[in-house]
């Protein structure tokens, strides 16, 4: 506890960095995955391929990706961009499937009615399909968000500072308090972000009964 107070500003800096490193991949992943998922859903021939590559992407272990990426991207070794890129890849991999499923489960008679009422193609996508896919997309974002917050810590092994640094540091110093505080802080950030998504869901999807349930 005293250690926590003594190092509060350090932990806070790490937490802020961590938050940042988590939010960016989730948001980027969402922005990329939704159109891709929508498209894949529309073109059943490509669906399996797109979702399959998503699966492959997701099974890539994070650690080697983090090490190899600077060579491919030409980024600096310490650049948090590496972590952001890797986590964005994971987020896209997971969310593409969610998005495809979300658009697949839209009630056909509602879509049919929307067309029959005179929505043009684009109007239907923007005004009907996207909002109706909202709850499932939100559920997907929540799952991705939690796992991203937890994955960011792996970056600490290769020197990208975040709350995971408390693990590597505590490990070397034989200092469990530091690790426990790190774990708690990570969980807290995950819950905080989750709360944020739920709140966002309440605001954007007031009509939805379930604000998304982890699948």
């Amino acid at each position: 506890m005293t250690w926590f107070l003594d190092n509060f500003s350090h932990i806070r800096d790490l937490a802020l960095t961590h938050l940042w490193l988590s939010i960016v991949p989730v948001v980027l992943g969402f922005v990329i995955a939704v159109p891709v998922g929508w498209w894949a859903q529309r073109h059943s021939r490509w669906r399996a391929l797109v979702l399959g590559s998503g699966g492959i992407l997701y099974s890539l272990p994070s650690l080697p990706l983090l090490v190899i990426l600077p060579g491919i991207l030409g980024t600096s070794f310490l650049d948090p961009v590496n972590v952001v890129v890797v986590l964005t890849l994971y987020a896209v991999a997971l969310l593409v499937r969610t998005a495809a499923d979300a658009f697949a489960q839209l009630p056909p008679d509602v879509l049919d009615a929307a067309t029959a009422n005179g929505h043009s193609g684009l109007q239907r996508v923007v005004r009907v399909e996207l909002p109706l896919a909202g709850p499932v997309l939100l559920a997907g974002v929540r799952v991705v968000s939690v796992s991203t917050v937890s994955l960011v810590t792996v970056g600490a092994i290769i020197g990208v500072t975040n709350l995971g640094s408390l693990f590597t540091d505590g490990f070397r110093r034989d200092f469990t308090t530091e690790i426990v505080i790190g774990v708690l802080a990570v969980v807290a950030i995950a819950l905080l972000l989750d709360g944020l998504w739920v709140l966002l869901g309440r605001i954007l999807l007031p009509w939805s009964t379930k604000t998304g349930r982890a699948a």
Partner: protein
Amino acid sequence: MIEYRNVGKTFADGTPAVGDFSLVLPSHTTTVLVGSSGCGKTTLLRMVNRMVDPSAGQVLIDDVDVATRNPVDLRRSIGYVMQHAGLLPHRRVVDNVAVPLRLVGVPRAEARTRALDALEKVGLDAALAEKYPRQLSGGQQQRVGVARGLVADPNILLMDEPFGAVDPIVRDDLQQELLRLQRELGKTIVFVTHDIDEAFLLGDQVVILRKGGEVAQVGTPAEILAAPADDFVRSFVGLDKGRRTLRIQEVDGQRIVVDGEGRAAGVLA
């Protein structure tokens, strides 16, 4: 006036839905297409607003081939009501009803006012306007669907088993409501059902269909009952099963009409 001229439809996957169908639907009347499941009713109905394009023949509205019209514009000019209401679950009731108006550019405030009028017309309480569809009963949702079909005051209203999913008591109400509205508004209604009782109640003109959209008989309900065209029609309207062959029986001094199956059908006035 809507006219089908030698219309045929085979779907992309090779399913033949309609063979060769011709019919004239007079304006300001209700024509009911009735037939059992899969006989092509929906397919025929959806040709009117180009949700389905015929693979042969033409559909004409007031002598204009719909194939020459932009489908989105066409749909905006025609009301459409379907079995599961098809309301947008993420929009409030009033906004659902306002959709056809908003799509043609009516400002939001005016659209909502007119939507409220339409809701009143179909007998829905204004208090429901701000609810979401799922908060309504099945029957109320259907009324909302009808309100949406009517809100833009289209000349033509397509109704595809609009009361098929609600329970019989509510269905009775909705049917009465529709009869009342039609007396008031005089739209050209194309109504699809597989319930012959509903067809006889609502239809000025009833079209009994066989598989493949083949016309078995066209006429008023009384004409069909009095002179069924063939055994298919006879069986379809229930004349063979005794449901329609009634006799009179005295109970407690009342003259009860009983059908061929022994079911009490009503009391003779």
